[in-house]
């Protein structure tokens, strides 16, 4: 379990995160949602131990991130950042995936096996000997997934994963998240793409100006009148469910179709 107790963080002027307390369970989907600049990514960095709270504490399975090096925490919490260009520097795609594994002390053989397995998982094994910077935007993004997937952390954080992704990549991303959840790992997603998050029905924390202003299951978020304060757009399935006066909103198109069929047959 990941536990944040009254956490504060600042970049120098004002607090980017202010008095946040939350719990993230293993094997669950969790969403940190909110407008741009609300502190979602800072929370993700705090959870992965890359930055340390200036007040309060962050525990990842009983390990206090303040007392551990980032390299110790990331073994459990892998984070996939939005911009692939910020991390690619090795000569080949294979070496790029192996880089983190070597940092973690895997011997060459095991690092290579894990890296190849991860590349295969993301359809990139044919590019193993190519320079990472020669890949297309979508392939680079998949490579960043493979990099983290290779060491199989217990929790994977996706920072704004849907930005700049086309329909096929979005479907692949959803499949990947479903598979990770089936493997019993935790998935934490920072996003304001409510359409993408809705079918997952994650445990949701709405972040606004560095504070958590709402928490609960996503299906309940839009039942409340003040969600608009956080500049969130209601997903279409949620809006349709409200118009149909459903007590439990439809989480998929199939669910909604069943309900509509039922109504029209009366």
């Amino acid at each position: 379990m990941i536990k944040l107790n009254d956490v504060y963080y600042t970049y120098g002027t004002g607090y980017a995160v202010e008095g946040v307390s939350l719990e993230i369970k293993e094997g669950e989907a969790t969403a940190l949602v909110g407008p741009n600049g609300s502190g979602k990514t800072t929370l993700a960095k705090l959870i992965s131990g890359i930055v340390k709270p200036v007040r309060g504490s962050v525990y990842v399975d009983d390990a206090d991130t303040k007392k551990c090096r980032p390299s110790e925490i990331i073994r459990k919490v892998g984070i996939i950042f939005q911009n692939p260009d910020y991390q690619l520097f090795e000569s080949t795609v294979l070496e790029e995936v192996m880089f983190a594994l070597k940092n973690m002390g895997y011997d060459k053989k095991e690092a290579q096996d894990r890296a190849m397995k991860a590349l295969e998982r993301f359809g990139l094994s044919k590019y193993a000997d190519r320079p990472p910077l020669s890949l297309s935007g979508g392939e680079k993004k998949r490579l960043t997934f493979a990099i983290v997937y290779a060491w199989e952390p217990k929790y994977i954080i996706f920072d704004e994963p849907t930005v700049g992704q086309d329909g096929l990549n979005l479907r692949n991303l959803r499949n990947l998240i479903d598979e990770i959840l089936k493997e019993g790992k935790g998935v934490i997603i920072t996003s304001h793409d409510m359409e993408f998050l809705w079918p997952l029905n994650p445990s949701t924390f709405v972040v606004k100006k560095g504070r958590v202003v709402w928490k609960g299951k996503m299906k309940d978020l839009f039942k409340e009148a003040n969600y608009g304060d956080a500049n969130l757009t209601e997903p279409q399935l949620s809006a349709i469910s409200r118009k149909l006066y459903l007590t439990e909103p439809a989480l998929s198109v199939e669910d909604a179709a069943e309900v509509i069929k039922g109504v029209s047959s009366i």
Partner: protein
Amino acid sequence: MSAVSRAFVYEQKDSWLYRLNPYVKIAAGLMLIVASLAFFSFKKTLLLFVLMLVLSASAKKLKMNSGSLAISAPFAAVIFIAEFLLGRNVVIGFAYALRFVNLVFSSSIMFTSVSPDEIDYMVRKALRSRDFSFLISTTYKFIPVLASDISQIIEVQKARGVDFDTKNILKLLKNYYTILVPLFVVSIVRSQQLAEALELRGYGASDKPTFIYEYPFRTSDALFMILILTLIVYTGMFV
């Protein structure tokens, strides 16, 4: 951006200093830098330091410029200790250390007071070369952007297990290599985007492009120049 890097990057504030003519701000900044180098005695360096503190505080820049004190303090301490070990008087050692602090502080005041647009204006007027002035002002504008890129790349590489807290200097230097390539790539991509954006907005379409802002020389500019010149000359000659 950290407080230290903020000490040398322009940030708009609502105060009298920002309303001065850019030539006056540059001239005053250069005078303070020259005075920092020229003053050796304890009294003179101390007076100059107080003058700059008052200037910075009255212009609502003290918090911004205080980062320069954090940068210069360790070096000033080394200078003081070195002077002491060389058998110099403690007061002289203190004056030499303060001289270094003054030099960094005066540079911070100048760099944080003149905007990239003002630099562009001055260089264009002086050299009559728009390309060169644009090159200088864009470089200046991109310092905070690059600083932000570096901090983001460091965080991303930390997430891959790169240890930037190691005390092994060789390992640290090797680890910093992981920043260079991404920074280079991001900078090239950004410069290409900037070049395309400039072309799309008509850069180079006219041989004589107009200025959006003009900076007239006002009475307040003259008064400020006289005041700062008098204070520096008086401190230099009569203290």
